[in-house]
């Protein structure tokens, strides 16, 4: 017997040992979905396909064939990933009219090859443009820690599904923080790898020059195992780099010896962070023995440039529909796209120059003496659904863009980040970013594993959600 909310590697291990059948794991997962509908995570359930995949795994085991590292593990994907037979919604009404995808996205194919079983697609912000997942077409996704609050976005459905214990892991995407923000607000682990590390083929684009895919899980080992399964060059993605696969699961037990760790500081970090959350970040740094401080001097200009490039690139993708189907867009997305379509070119080109300059500064100055930076994910925990403004340290600011304050300057230059959850006994969870040099995801994973082992970060399923997802699987 086991709970639906068990971790991915536990499930895979028991399926491989013959203690559980993949088909039983799947049926228990599907049975829990109607009760979890309260969180509004799923936009489609792929039960028929999942049953075929689970039965195929059980047949392979009965024949004595080797199973993949994620054999029988249920997962779900943000609905911007192509799933064969489904239109790729990307959170929009417009895309519902698209022809069904003829092939799974590259990432789903990698996970299927590892034995994972796709059970459905998940809600998101329309075209990934936002941080709250309050979708005008498909409704707001609710935070499993407090269903009256946002799950964060744009991968809000993915984060909430994992946080609620309905699936052990889920795929998302991160252009300006769309994995790290919902991971923090929902209290789970998330990873945004180096730009170019994981293939985006079959993922509907948002701002292609900094779109990343990544994923969520409730433990570092699960996060690492899924990351390793996703590795591999893809010639169909023009930014996918040709590197040797560098799996991180074998590195998790190495500890943190030899890593130079510093805490990120700067005007925004100092003035626009709730005091309790600042204490959380400092506590993590203390545990890591990180006494160094690094000022993120140009973070504000990096974030500003990220806004400009995002607006220009994303609007460009939707010009035809802005002309012909304007009122089929989510109103909040529509107006941002309209504004972005009108930008003077020199704003965008200068923003690209700033981007290269900022990358060089980070590599030559910040990472010259530091291996890993520690920074908060968001300035505040999850806010009530429908709220437009927030007051932090006496300053009232627009809620939605403020959620990206600490995450945008990092995805802007493609750095790898693991987001770790801080679970508070009283109050809502928050998150902390572990930021590494390009291609050194292993350093970020090692620190995450150390913090998890020390008990400073964890992702427990909230009690109410656990009672929904906790029905035992009967082998």
């Amino acid at each position, binding site marked *: 017997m086991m709970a639906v909310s068990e971790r991915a590697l536990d499930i895979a291990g028991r399926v491989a040992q013959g203690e559980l059948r993949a088909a039983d794991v799947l049926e228990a997962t599907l049975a829990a979905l109607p009760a979890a509908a309260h969180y509004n995570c799923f936009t489609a359930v792929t039960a028929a396909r999942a049953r075929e995949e689970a039965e195929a795994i059980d047949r392979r085991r009965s024949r004595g064939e080797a199973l993949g590292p994620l054999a029988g593990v249920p997962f779900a994907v943000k609905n911007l990933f192509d799933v064969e037979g489904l239109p790729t919604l990307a959170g929009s009404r417009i895309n519902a009219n698209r022809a069904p995808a003829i092939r799974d996205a590259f990432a789903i194919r990698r996970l299927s090859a590892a034995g994972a079983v796709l059970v459905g697609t998940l809600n998101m912000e329309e075209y990934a443009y936002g941080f709250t997942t309050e979708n005008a077409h498909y409704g707001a996704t609710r935070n499993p820690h407090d269903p009256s609050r946002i799950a964060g976005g744009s991968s809000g459905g993915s984060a909430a599904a994992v946080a609620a214990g309905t699936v052990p892991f889920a795929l998302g995407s991160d252009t300006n923080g769309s994995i790290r923000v919902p991971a923090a607000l929902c209290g789970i682990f998330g990873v945004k790898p180096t730009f170019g590390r994981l293939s985006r083929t079959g993922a509907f684009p948002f701002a292609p020059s900094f779109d990343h895919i990544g994923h969520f899980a409730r433990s570092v080992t699960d996060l690492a195992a899924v990351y390793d399964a996703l590795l591999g060059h893809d010639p169909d993605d023009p930014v996918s*780099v040709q590197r040797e696969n560098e799996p991180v699961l074998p590195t998790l037990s190495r500890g943190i010896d030899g890593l130079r760790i510093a805490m990120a500081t700067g005007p925004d970090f100092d003035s626009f962070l709730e005091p309790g959350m600042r204490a959380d970040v400092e506590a993590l740094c203390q545990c890591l023995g990180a006494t160094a401080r690094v000022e993120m001097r140009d973070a504000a200009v990096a974030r500003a440039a990220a806004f*400009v490039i995002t*607006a220009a690139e994303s609007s460009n993708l939707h010009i035809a529909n802005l*002309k012909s189907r304007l009122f089929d867009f989510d109103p909040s997305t529509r107006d941002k796209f309209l504004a972005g379509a*009108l*930008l003077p070119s020199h*704003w965008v080109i200068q923003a690209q120059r700033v981007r290269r300059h900022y990358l060089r500064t980070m590599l030559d100055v910040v990472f010259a003496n530091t291996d890993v930076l520690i920074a908060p994910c968001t300035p505040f925990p999850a806010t009530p659904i429908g709220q437009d403004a927030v007051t932090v340290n006496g300053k009232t600011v627009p809620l939605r863009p403020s959620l990206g304050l600490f995450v945008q300057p990092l995805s802007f230059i*493609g750095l790898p980040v693991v987001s770790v959850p801080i679970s508070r006994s009283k109050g809502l969870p928050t998150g902390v970013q572990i930021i590494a040099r390009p291609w050194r995801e292993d350093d970020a994973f090692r620190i995450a594993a150390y913090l998890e082992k020390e008990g400073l970060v964890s992702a427990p399923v909230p009690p109410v959600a656990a009672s929904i997802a906790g029905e035992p699987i009967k082998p």
Partner: protein
Amino acid sequence: MLRPGWDSHSGRLRRPREEYMDTENYVMRTAEAIGLTIPSACAQGTLRGFDRLAQMAAVVLAHQLADETESAQIFSLDHE
């Protein structure tokens, strides 16, 4: 170089207004030029969005770079 009329620090149009196009005129004329229609229901949100982007652009444009002629080629970390 900034287009005449744009203030590099505020990202907004310089005054006096009558000397230059104002933001609303810029938005509407540019939209028309590229074949976009901005209905009245979207006008306020679009102007607010453009104004926010103008503020962000002002921060970007005010940032001094060592080499202002540096290429703005497609971003890549492949060789880093």
